[in-house]
């Protein structure tokens, strides 16, 4: 696969390490009332959709950026890629 890195352009997927579902970004509030249950969910449960999936790819053999890649798990078509840092910041600002 080729991953369209937002800074470096098209890069071979083998330069990346797959980190999994993008919801890893949403670490639960450790002070919340159901923190333990929320963390169990966060640590152990993942969606495994047949279709469009947002996932984290770490450019380990490259510039060490984490990317949020939107990919179809059926066709491997890549619909977009952005820096995970931008994604996470937008998320924290309530942008998503």
């Amino acid at each position: 696969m080729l991953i369209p890195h937002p800074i470096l352009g098209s890069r071979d997927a083998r330069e990346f390490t797959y980190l999994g579902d993008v919801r890893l970004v949403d670490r639960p509030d450790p002070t919340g009332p159901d923190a333990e249950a929320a963390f169990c969910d966060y640590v152990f449960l993942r969606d495994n959709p047949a279709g469009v999936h947002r996932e984290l790819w770490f450019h380990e053999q490259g510039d060490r950026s984490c990317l949020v890649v939107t990919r179809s798990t059926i066709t491997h078509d890549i619909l977009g890629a952005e820096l995970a840092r931008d994604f996470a910041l937008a998320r924290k600002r309530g942008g998503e």
Partner: protein
Amino acid sequence: MTRLSGGLVDRSQTLNFTFDGKQYHGYPGDTLASALLANGVRLMGRSFKYHRPRGVFSAGSEEPNALVELRSGARQEPNTRATVAELFEGLVARSQNRWPSLGFDALAVNDLLSPFFTAGFYYKTFMWPKAFWEMLYEPAIRKAAGLGSLSMQADPDAYDKGFLHCDVLVIGGGPAGLAAVLTAARSGARVILADEDFRLGGRLLAETETLDGAPATDWISALETEFESLPNVRVMRRTTVFGVFDHGIYGAVERVSDHLAEPGDKVRQTLWRITAKRAILASGATERPIAFADNDRPGIMLAGAMRAYANRWAACPSKTIAVFTNNDDGHRTARDLAAKGVHVAAVIDARREARARGDYRVIAGGMVTGSRGRLGLRAIEVSTNGRREWIECGSLGVSGGWNPNVHLTSHHRGRPVWNEALQAFLPGADGPAGLLPVGAAAGHFSTAQTLRSGAEAALRALTELAIAAAPPVLPQSEESGYGVAPIFHVAGKKRAWVDFQNDVTVKDLKIAHAENMRPVEHLKRYTTLGMATDQGKTSNVTGLAVMAELTGKSIPETGTTIFRPPYTPVTISVLGGGDTGPHFRPRRLTPTHNWAEAQGAVFVETGQWMRAEYFPRQSETHWRQSVDRETKAVRSAVGLCDVSTLGKVDVQGADAGEFLNRLYSNVMDTLKVGRVRYGLMLREDGFAYDDGTCARLAEDHYVVTTTTANAGLVYRNMEFARQCLWPELDVQVISTTDAWAQIAVAGPKSRALLTRIVDGFDLSNDAFPFMACAELVVCGGLRARLFRISFSGELAFEIAVPARYGHALMERLMQAGADLGATPYGVEALSVLRVEKGHVGGSELNGQSTAAMLGLGKMVSQKKDAIGAVMSRREGLAGDIRRIVGLQPVERAGKVVAGSHLFTVGAPQNLDTDQGWITSACYSPHVGSMIGLGFLENGDQRIGEVIVAANPVEGESERLRIVPAHFVDPEGARLRD
């Protein structure tokens, strides 16, 4: 001899080769198959299941029958298709799947038992008793079946892998492919042509038709010259594109020196990963047979293959041939062979309206209904309108039509589409993006059509890539018809083979139908149709057609099979691409590696690193002697150990302290500048993950260490945390593991030694106490970092210098410390020292232990959040009562074995009574006996108790006394000295 005139072999040179020990000769340009045919050899192998005598069936990579063993010794390779094995001087080939000889094969008795061996036989027969499958049935079946044998020796040849990028990849060097390359080459686009043959031209080489009134080889030669002159064109012969992968990535194998007796200084094969913006699939078409009774005798082959052998290789299996066809193409074979002086006994054309295209007898509306000749064809039975006659011939060319080679178009699950006029599956519209099928692969069966479609596809691809191109002038060529009739098999009672390689007959398909294995996926698996190494290139469509007839449905209703990579078999060796033995993975060397090697160190692999395990002296005959000596040197004088492999991460920024607070279970932001703190990391699921030290060099600058094994993983997690979890923090991290050489200087005389190399730095206990750190200058101007930390429990330091100075620093320390007894020590002594001190290592931090189990429960701060903090309080983790303890044998000479399980004395030994296990064990020179660390239920409250360590694997059991996990200086006075 059955060598004809003409052909594309070089008769100026003779090549000697052997087949089953017998000497033959051929010419450069021959394949093993063509040379054998030219030598009158029709029998080349035995079939997989019934051990039926078989000859060559095709002239290309689709070959199901003529599988042979090539070469000898370590280079012996089984299951090689004789049709693609290029002849070279001294080639040694053997037939396979026969005993004692090809002519007389004892297992041919299977053929007599064939009524028992039909589809589903294994499923039905070898069911009971169940245990017999593994013990008896499977080994026996495997021995009887199977094809070639392995040499059982290591592959002596080198393999390589490479990466290529291009605008247009053209797959196949026949007329369509060449027209595509020609178009793209002249536009200046970066073009790669990959062709599986050793000579460009594809089907043109097998035909007599002319281009612009001249032999096709003239046109091909002119193109080859032009391509060679263009820097933007790369022509790769002997290169098979075997798979289409995501986003325009193609896998290809180049057989660099398969055609040589020995590769010499070349690699044997290269695995190419080609990234192409567009690809043009000019893979041609494969002829299919018509199934009839006893259609597998040596001498019966595809009509197009027979023509190829005659035209390209001037070889013919027999002086008298016949052709059985359902289409016009079969007549070309008769015409060309007659022109070469071969006697054409008859052309049996299943179509009633068939007419001769030359001077030969045509039996219109005829069917071949039988054959004779045990080891080679002697005669065929022809039935016409109820009348039967036997026609003598040594070879029969069969043409049931042509199947476009759509394989690569279905590698992304693209489904071929049935074309009624061509009676064939054509590439569907849902093939891989950017892959354009052309020529015969797209159903264009005349040369003129293929040339045009190749050029047009290239223009389309270039337009999409915004590269200007002009249509080339294509040579004048034939616009021939094809006219295929839908006849796939001839009804009859005797066995008619569909899949030759897996011995699947029409009868097997009938059984599958009768037993309701009708969906094509079931049909395949029940009968094994198309599941041999040829992936059913000559059999799948015929099998489908027969099933369609049985079910009374159309072929597209019956289904289609799609193909997966590889197009043709790929060796494991080339997939490894040379990454074998020491090249299997990168080997990392420490900065003092060469020095250690010169000292005679014994090395051990730890992950990718090669680390010095111990440094034997000449008088030492056992590793324990060396390790004991090194350990004692650290406890009594000073030892030196390269610890550069520990992960080092530089953490900088205003929020560095806060960031580390969230990563480590204990508090890090309160650490004073110039001090070091031990840190414990948890995984988010609450288990202990990694440990190391955090040194604060400045308010906004920390240097943290990780274990050697987790260096990459911890750094990755830190980047994840920084970018994904807390992007708002002002912090940057970078791995500096390879940038710094770090040497542990440990032992009571370590301060004395270091004093001799520092440039005016106060090492006194007051100025530089335990857990201090500093940046300083050593050895007269070299910048360094010094940490007063101890893994051994002794007064100890770790000194870091830029990696390139590691070797020199080690030499300097050894020199300066000679009179102090400075001794290098390896990871074995390092481990003994840490077990003696009770520090946890990889055996304790194994991903299943909690902080409390490690005796580090207090390091999990309850005042702040950190990764794993919430989950570490889960009931299951918080309730784990196992604790780390020290273990010592009751008898001084007793053994402590890591992995042993711990039980109360006298208790039965089972899972319910299991109380823990020993994680680490070693001989302790300090204690004078073996010692161990282990996890034990309520271990911290059972000091002094005697327990049993059971080692059932060795049938051993030992009484051990539970002691605190600190065998050396439990108060920690030495390291604070």
